[in-house]
């Protein structure tokens, strides 16, 4: 009896040890960014310490010195929200078609969607620049909402397609027997079932758009009121000229990452459920 208890205890200790290992691995750089955000500029060049020698909130004051950063947060929030909603609507439509409907050209279209991930963003930058200008979106958040689907849509479509394909076929057959049209089956029966998957892919799309830099820099940099967070951070200038304002950047990193972590915490149960059904059948 006692031996069995010891074995269980050992197992628990091992498990928590592994959990701690994963936590340290994931969080140590984040912790380092946190500590750095309270350090002074001159401390950057001294031997590294685990805690600031003299903690300062100056870096945070710099981040919030005027409304630029708050505006950037607002821009990022609405651009990312609009991008993820669009990715979910267009993506779930396409995924339903590719995952559940019978028509010619299905496999080709799956490759067509995937082909959007086969070139670096730099390849299409000047082409997109022309299109954004012709649409009249240059210098506004709309330029990003139009261009971000190039990386949010393929992932959304593929994950949701595999999710739809994993649902049992009886669901639709019952609906068709009851006289529902295919679109009614989709909207009233299949879509509610995919709610968790929508939350997951929506969140992933949100994070991708929140973090995007190249398009945001090229399409919104000329208009300070349309800048997103990564662009605003890149335009920080240090307290001393010629020097990277690294502590300020880390303070800003804290401000932008914590909302995302809270978002993940709120949705975390849904996230895992969301991808669960999708993984049943690749």
């Amino acid at each position, binding site marked *: 009896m006692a031996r069995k208890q010891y074995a269980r205890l050992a197992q628990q200790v091992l498990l928590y040890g592994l959990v701690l290992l994963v936590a340290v691995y994931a969080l140590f750089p984040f912790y380092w960014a946190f500590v750095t955000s309270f350090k002074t500029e001159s401390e950057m060049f001294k*031997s590294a310490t685990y805690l600031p020698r003299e903690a300062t909130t100056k870096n945070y004051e710099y981040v919030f010195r005027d409304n630029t950063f708050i505006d950037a947060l607002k821009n990022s929030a609405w651009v990312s929200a609009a991008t993820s909603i669009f990715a979910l609507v267009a993506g779930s439509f396409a995924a339903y*078609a590719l995952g559940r409907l019978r028509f010619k050209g*299905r496999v080709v279209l799956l490759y067509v969607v995937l082909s959007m991930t086969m070139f670096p963003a730099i390849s299409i930058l000047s082409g997109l620049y022309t299109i954004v200008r012709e649409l009249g979106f240059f210098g506004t958040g709309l330029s990003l909402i139009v261009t971000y689907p190039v990386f949010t849509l393929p992932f959304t479509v593929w994950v949701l397609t595999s999710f739809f394909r994993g649902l049992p076929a009886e669901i639709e057959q019952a609906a068709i027997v009851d006289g529902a049209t295919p679109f009614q089956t989709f909207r009233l029966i299949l879509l509610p079932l995919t709610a968790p998957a929508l939350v997951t892919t929506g969140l992933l799309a949100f994070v991708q758009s929140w973090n995007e830099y190249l398009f945001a820099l090229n399409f919104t940099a000329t208009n300070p009121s349309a800048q997103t967070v990564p662009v605003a951070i890149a335009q920080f200038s240090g307290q001393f000229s010629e020097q990277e304002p690294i502590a300020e*950047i880390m303070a800003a990193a804290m401000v932008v990452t914590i909302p995302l972590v809270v978002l993940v915490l709120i949705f975390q149960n849904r996230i895992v459920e969301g991808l669960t059904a999708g993984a049943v059948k690749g």
Partner: protein
Amino acid sequence: METNNQAPGTRPEILLLSAVMMLIGALAIVLFFAAVANDEAIQLALNWTTAEDDARPPSLLLIYLERFGIIISVLFILSGAFFITIGWRLRRGNIRVAHWARIGLLWLCIGAASYILLTAFNIINSAAMDREAVDFGQLLSAISPALVVLAIGFLLWTWLNNNIERLFSGEDSLIGRETRLAWNLLIPTLTIFVLVAARPLEQTFIRSLTDKRFAGSAVPQFVGLENYYNLLTFRIDTVTCRKSISDGPCDTRANGSIRWESIDRELLREGYRTIFNVPIGGDQSAAISGLDDDFIEAIFTTVVFTVISVAGELIIGLFMAMVVNSKFRGRGAMRAVMLVPWAIPTVISARLWELMLKDTSAGIFNKILLDLGAIDAPLAWLSDPSLQIPTAIIVDVWKTAPFMALLLLAGLQVIPSDLYEAASVDGASPVRRFFSITLPLLRPAIAIALIFRTLDALRVFDLFNVLFGRQQLSMATYNFETLVSNQLDGYASAISVIIFIFISIFAFIYVRLLQVES
């Protein structure tokens, strides 16, 4: 219309609808050609006189391709043709054709409505920019043609919707219904595909055949495949090693690598540079040289980076997923913690790692290793060429293993726990359970995660750009440097096209091997 030929049951309403549909189709094609003919750039090229300028005249074909391209032209003509064909076939009164006509009209309305919104937005926005009042007369005249199209389209659409059963006959099949629904549902995604992927990529392809310069005013000219020739040409020569004493051993550098003779002077003058030497026995080696050694090296670097970092992410991601999948207190919070590295924007996390990897004891990694006594002097993680790729791999694995872990965690959750119980009753060891239950059932989840991660890693940009600048190039940063620093738009475009072809081949083989599309 040839009304005498009319099929039995055809009514005048149908003939009217048929005529309007064909008219819309014809109009679309005519308007497209009118737009091409009236285009400013094309007009400028047509009226080009060498007398007023000594510069080379622009190529009309090139300007047409730049402004309109093949994809847009084909799509316009195809949609025109679609309306004409549907209109023609409507006369027979078949209900299937009528359903397709309905789809055509619906998307015509959506297209006209989008055009109206876009034009209105542009006029209002530019008025706001100039702090002027919106000129509603101008607004109205700009959108009136589209308003007319919208009104006609919407009327026809509602009318057809209400009367389709009454006017048309024939059997509609389930497959037909599903096909139409599928295309309806795919149009938004395909529109985005054309607008932000296919069309820009097409322009890149066109520019890759020219000598266009970035932000330059010179008129670009076609140069054929010259850019591709310069990028891809390579040759293999045999060279011998350098010897300070004849018949002695080969000379070596401080790090132990052999010093090889360089290739022929004549070849160097032609632009060939040796990328690497492969020893082939004796004191000889095969020297692989290319006209653009940087590019071939960038491909090599990127592939090495991709293979090792994706493998590392898979292993660490699987480990993380399995730990987080076990039962313990605070599991929910751990899932959020696990995602932290992925949630930090790459531009910032690359800076963070740059800070942690500083080549003095101000960098925490060097400090830890020095304190542990693992190294005697700080390492130059970012500037020592032999440490650069390993460093990039470490940072990338840290950042993206959580993404992998999230996808794999989902796969782990659906493995029924009774499978494991049955296996342990049979006395299977944990290792055996992992290889005979976990891995096979996780395969589909692994496949999707691997495809997206591999394609992402092959396109790595932010990380290399922030950490190494020009010191160590990935395919994407080489492309960027050629475009922005060297201003060679045509050449950079050829690089983009080659990267695209390279990654497509990779992706196709991958998807086939992992059998995800079936």
